């Protein structure tokens, strides 16, 4: 550094750095609005996370409230409901992962073999459609189809002389309804990324395989699936990383008092304790705990996959 010192006292490298920054000042102005929004609305709440370690008192504010350490975390981890919440959360997301993950891959592989271009396009358009339906409408449809008095499912059951079943108030039905409605809604959209990967396959590879007498199944097994593997790995990492982060929106919409045993998950618990009962500190602690576990799991899975020599997220 010393031998590069210029007459102005600044090293040439740092001066050129400043020059590069000043020359691009307008680019920084382009970023400024987004950055300000980010600092206020996503880093602002991070500042507020400290109330998880405090006894939040509205009059004293976030900064002024007294510290109490890990009391809220201890309370949560020893709470009667903790094991139930943990079990419900893990079961729901594992079930969603196991049932939901293969379908987009299968759909993509199948669509890739479909010869009729027009039909393929129609199938794609229709299978993507549920993705654009709002969660409220999705659960509204579920409620309509499965309602005991006016629901279609039960009218069909009655035609066959079966008893009408109140699917939506049966705790053991909750997970099935949650997961399979999710598969219905997400399968088509999820297949796009795999179709994109498949479209990148060099056609010559397939032609060579055909000349060598490979059947379609063999070509899928030895050409298409290996092509999809990196994408599959990355999506699996992401999915495993969010094993403890079941979203609250869909669960809240499906919930009723009769199915709390199976449907109460950590995020809905945070919402109820925090916003409905205004226990801000306690629920922030639960949310923070959940977040830390999520990030840890994500990093762990990512490290393991990288060690195994597969493509990883970071």
């Amino acid at each position: 550094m010393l031998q590069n010192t210029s007459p102005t006292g600044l090293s040439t490298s740092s001066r050129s750095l400043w020059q590069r920054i000043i020359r691009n000042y307008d680019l920084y102005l382009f970023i400024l609005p987004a950055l300000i929004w980010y600092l206020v609305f996503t880093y602002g709440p991070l500042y507020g996370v400290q109330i998880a370690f405090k006894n939040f008192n509205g009059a004293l504010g976030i900064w002024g409230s007294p510290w109490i350490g890990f009391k809220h975390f201890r309370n949560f981890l020893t709470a009667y409901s903790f094991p139930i919440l943990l079990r419900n959360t893990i079961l729901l997301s594992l079930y969603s992962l196991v049932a939901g993950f293969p379908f987009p891959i299968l759909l993509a592989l199948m669509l890739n073999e479909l010869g009729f271009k027009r039909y393929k396009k129609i199938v794609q358009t229709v299978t993507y459609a549920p993705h654009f339906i709002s969660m409220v409408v999705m659960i509204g449809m579920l409620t309509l189809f499965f309602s005991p008095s006016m629901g279609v499912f039960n009218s069909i059951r009655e035609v066959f002389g079966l008893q009408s079943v109140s699917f939506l108030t049966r705790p053991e039905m909750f997970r099935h309804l949650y997961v399979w409605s999710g598969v219905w809604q997400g399968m088509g959209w999820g297949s796009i990324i795999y179709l994109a990967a498949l479209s990148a396959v060099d056609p010559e590879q397939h032609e060579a395989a055909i000349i060598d007498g490979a059947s379609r199944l063999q070509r899928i097994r030895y050409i298409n699936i290996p092509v999809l593997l990196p994408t599959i790995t990355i999506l699996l990492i992401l999915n495993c990383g969010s094993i403890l982060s079941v979203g609250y929106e869909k669960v809240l919409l499906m919930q009723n008092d009769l199915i709390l045993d199976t449907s109460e998950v950590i995020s809905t618990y945070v919402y109820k304790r925090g916003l409905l009962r205004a226990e801000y500190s306690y629920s922030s602690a639960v949310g923070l705990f959940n977040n830390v576990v999520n990030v840890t799991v994500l990093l762990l899975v990512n490290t393991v996959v990288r060690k195994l020599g597969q493509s990883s997220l970071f």
Partner: protein
Amino acid sequence: MSRLIRESVGDRVFLIINFILITMLFLIIAYPLYFVIIASISDVDYVSTGRVILYPIGINFEGYRRVFSDSLIMTGYRNTIFYTVVGTLFNLTLTIPAAYALSKKDLVGRNFLMGIFAFTMYFSGGMIPTFLLVRDLKLLDTWWVLILTSGVTCYNLIIARTFFQNGVPQELEEAAVIDGCSRVRLFISIVLPLSRAIIAVLALYYGIARWNSWFPGMIYLDSRAKAPLQLILRDILIENQQMALDETGIGTEAEAIRLKLATLLKYCLIIVSSAPVLIVYPFLQKYFNQGVMLGSIKG
């Protein structure tokens, strides 16, 4: 057909099974949507007894007439249009210039800034601290709360940045700079017109998220006059809040009629609220695909 003949027997069997399976999946996904449409224009009695299966029976538009004359729903509709249009503009104004600047490889601190944006994707303050912040900013129950609380989505920022890195020819920009064009002019008159595809993708992603969102409305808004459509839908579809129906008779028969009417209205509401999105998106499908592909490129 000629193509099918060239296939071996095994492959032909495979193709036929493949075709059947796809068609089954297609029907499983399409049928519930189709059913809602035919149920919304059928006589409720036939729907609730399971006789409406393949086509509407007793076609009438009574449900739609009532939905469109309900003031609460129409207010929600107007509010949602406001939130979607203004909100999406807000999202785009924040995201597009930032993504453009971040796409410049010689920008000092580019990775650091990207890190700032990406960090909260994995680690965020969570629901409660966010709520307290919005409360402290005195935004609760204002027209602006839903607009302001959603700004830049990191995923969309990355998509746009990837697009600008590859989509706009560098030579064109350099030539414009040599000709004495300022960065702002360059961006507005050269880069933006070349970036219609990415603007469309982001507008759709942001717009649909805005149209479909209900939870922020539920926690940040008190007054029904400001509620977005999805929130009102939730009350009617899921919480079974009755719409203001004219028949206010007493007794089981009046009750039964009311229940039937409420069911019919739900089918109509699903169509009325989802139609804008479902009608728009097939025309823009190629852009959606483009967006997913841009997002899947690492970097």
